[in-house]
């Protein structure tokens, strides 16, 4: 049985193409059932995120299976296969395994190390499990992918540093304040990056947000969006002592916060630290503010510097992650190849024969006055019994090799009789990690 992958991602297709091929998360039953109904396709999982659409499937016929999946993607979305095909990639065998392990570990993401992708694949797998389009192989395959991703996350620092300006601001705030749950954020002015940063702060859970703008109406509008408190620009100096984190991005041509203002504000709040983030160009906050005791000022360039360093760090960590992926591929393949029918039959017969011979030897050694020729006859007898017992399961296994259920049988046999497959993964496939 082979694992194949067909799909497209941000690396091969622009968003205009990706959005046409995407599957709605609420309607996964129909496409999943359609894929497993295709000839030669036995199991299927569909992953559809804003950055990638991929089908993982098992098949006996690699080339035919891939062609069918490609045709399915085009037909299902009413697209021309010819136009779609140049954006599609397809993998089988070890390459397919590597691809999926890398995707789950966020090594193939637009921002390497971003944590969402693992959850998205888990959700996709959840649909496949719900509509029973995945079976023994894909179940084990995806659980393996999840555990690889978990290993990568715990053994490397791939996701431990902020790689966006907004996140970097949050991380820095945590380094100053520790807990942010009792801290207040003040937004001065509006701007895309400023609002994004504010959203990140709200996500990690700050106590409150205040918004101010030269036009009070705009402040009110933004305040509504963030569930924040709008304050008048004239009241800025009165309200400033209440803010711990200040995000500023006004269009003012000159500084709106000076060293002396900040000095006074800090005295009024008993020198409790303040974190200023100046995202405006030209700048809003006098750089000398950084010289004020317990005030920390970062500009957009400083934050970009943090992000650049972190991205470099991620590259180093990504190399470690790739090594983990390679290691795990080998393990998974040992298990996958153990699902082949012929070696399983050989192993099963070997297991029975071993028991037969051992028991026979035990009996004969304690038997003194054995008539001549009896030894041979006993051997033939036990052999015949064994063959009779094994006949039915063996022929069923051979017959099922063409069908869809043999992986289930083979896996069950391996487990029931503890047939040793060197190096096969022993991890419990039911421990679906649900974090």
């Amino acid at each position, binding site marked *: 049985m082979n694992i194949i992958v067909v799909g497209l991602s941000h690396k091969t297709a622009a968003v205009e193409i990706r959005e046409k091929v995407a599957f709605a998360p609420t309607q996964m039953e129909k496409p999943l059932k359609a894929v497993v109904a295709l000839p030669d396709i036995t199991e299927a999982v569909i992953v559809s995120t804003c950055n990638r659409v991929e089908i993982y499937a098992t098949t006996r016929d690699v080339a035919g299976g891939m062609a069918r999946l490609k045709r399915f993607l085009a037909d299902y979305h009413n697209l021309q296969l010819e136009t779609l095909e140049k954006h599609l990639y397809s993998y089988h065998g070890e390459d397919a395994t590597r691809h999926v392990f890398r995707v789950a570990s966020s090594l193939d993401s637009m921002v390497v190390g971003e944590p969402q992708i693992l959850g998205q694949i888990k959700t996709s797998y959840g649909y496949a499990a719900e509509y029973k389009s995945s079976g023994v192989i894909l179940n084990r395959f995806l659980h393996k992918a999840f555990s690889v991703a978990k290993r990568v996350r715990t053994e490397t620092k791939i996701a431990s540093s902020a790689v966006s300006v907004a996140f970097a601001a949050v991380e*820095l705030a*945590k*380094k*100053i*304040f*520790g*807990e942010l749950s009792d801290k207040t954020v003040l937004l001065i002015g509006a701007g895309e990056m400023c609002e994004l940063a504010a959203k990140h702060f709200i996500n990690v859970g700050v106590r409150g947000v205040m918004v101010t703008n030269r036009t009070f109406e705009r402040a009110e509008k933004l305040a509504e969006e963030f569930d924040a408190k709008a304050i008048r620009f004239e009241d800025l100096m009165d309200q400033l002592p209440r803010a711990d984190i200040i995000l500023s991005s006004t269009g003012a041509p000159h500084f709106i916060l000076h060293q002396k203002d900040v000095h006074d504000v800090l*005295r009024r*709040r*008993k*020198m*409790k*630290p303040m974190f200023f983030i100046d995202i405006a160009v030209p700048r809003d906050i006098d750089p000398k503010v*950084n010289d004020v*005791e*317990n005030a*920390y000022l*970062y500009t957009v360039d*400083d934050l970009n*510097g*943090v992000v650049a*360093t972190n991205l470099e760090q991620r590259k180093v960590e990504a190399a470690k992650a790739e090594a983990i992926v390679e290691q795990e591929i080998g393990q998974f393949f040992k298990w996958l190849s153990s699902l082949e029918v012929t070696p399983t039959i050989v192993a099963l017969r070997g297991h029975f024969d071993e028991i037969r011979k051992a028991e026979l030897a035990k009996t004969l050694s304690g038997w003194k006055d054995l008539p001549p020729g009896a030894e041979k006859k006993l051997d033939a007898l036990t052999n015949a019994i064994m063959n009779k017992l094994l006949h039915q399961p063996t022929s069923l296994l051979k017959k099922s090799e063409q069908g869809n259920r043999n992986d289930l049988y083979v896996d069950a046999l391996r487990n029931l009789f503890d047939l040793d497959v060197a190096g096969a993964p022993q991890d419990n496939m039911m421990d679906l990690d649900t974090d």
Partner: protein
Amino acid sequence: MNALLFNSTLVVYAVATAIYLTYLVKPKESTGRAGQLVTLVGFLVHAGFTLTRYLAAGHTPITNLHESLSFFSLAVVGIFILFERRYKVYILGSFVMPLALLILAISASFSSVIPPLNPALKSKWLVVHTVMAFLGYAAFAISFGVSIMYLIQAHFLKKRRLGPMFQKLPPLDMLDDISYRCLTFGFPLLTFAIISGAIWAETAWGTYWSWDPKETWSLITWFIYAALLHGRLTTGWRGRKAAMLSIFGFVIMLFTFLGVNLLLPGLHSYK
């Protein structure tokens, strides 16, 4: 037995220090936990040493520099264990354990012979006065270590040098908080140590206060920490200023403890 326990403590503290310094270079959860465990073992052995010494001497073993430095070190480690449990930051150990080891090593350089008890010290006040003083000193010592961490971290943030060391150190506010808690713990102890000392002086020497160097310097130390706490509560002496004052206070405190005993002759010069 006594020497064995003392030397074992030295060795275990040295191991704990080595582990915590390794943690500083390569912070791994397992390393931190190992440091925590070894420190706890060291503390228990150290407490065992102090107990056997008490039994052997028949009085509180804080009567000369060997004993009092050892007790100082024990108190530092004990309070550190409490704070590490509370804040769960192993890196604290990288700054506190070397200090505890150093204090104990200095203690080792003084004679460990148990001398006959100075008759002036034969009093139930001995235990109250010395234990409180040294617990207070230990709290100030930890505040000192944490304040150094604060200054390093604040420097990184101001200069925007956000390297690996910056990543390892705890948030500024947490350091500020630990330091403050140490002071609120140490200051009342120091206060009671001075008061109990005065009462003892009255019974032993017939006067509450005789301006002996130890008394004078204790009072100076007390004023520094009082100013620090007062400033924090009223005008907000926190952050860098508080950290620098805490470091200054610790240096003066060390002089009160060691300098006075070794350099200035007076009623308290127990060696």
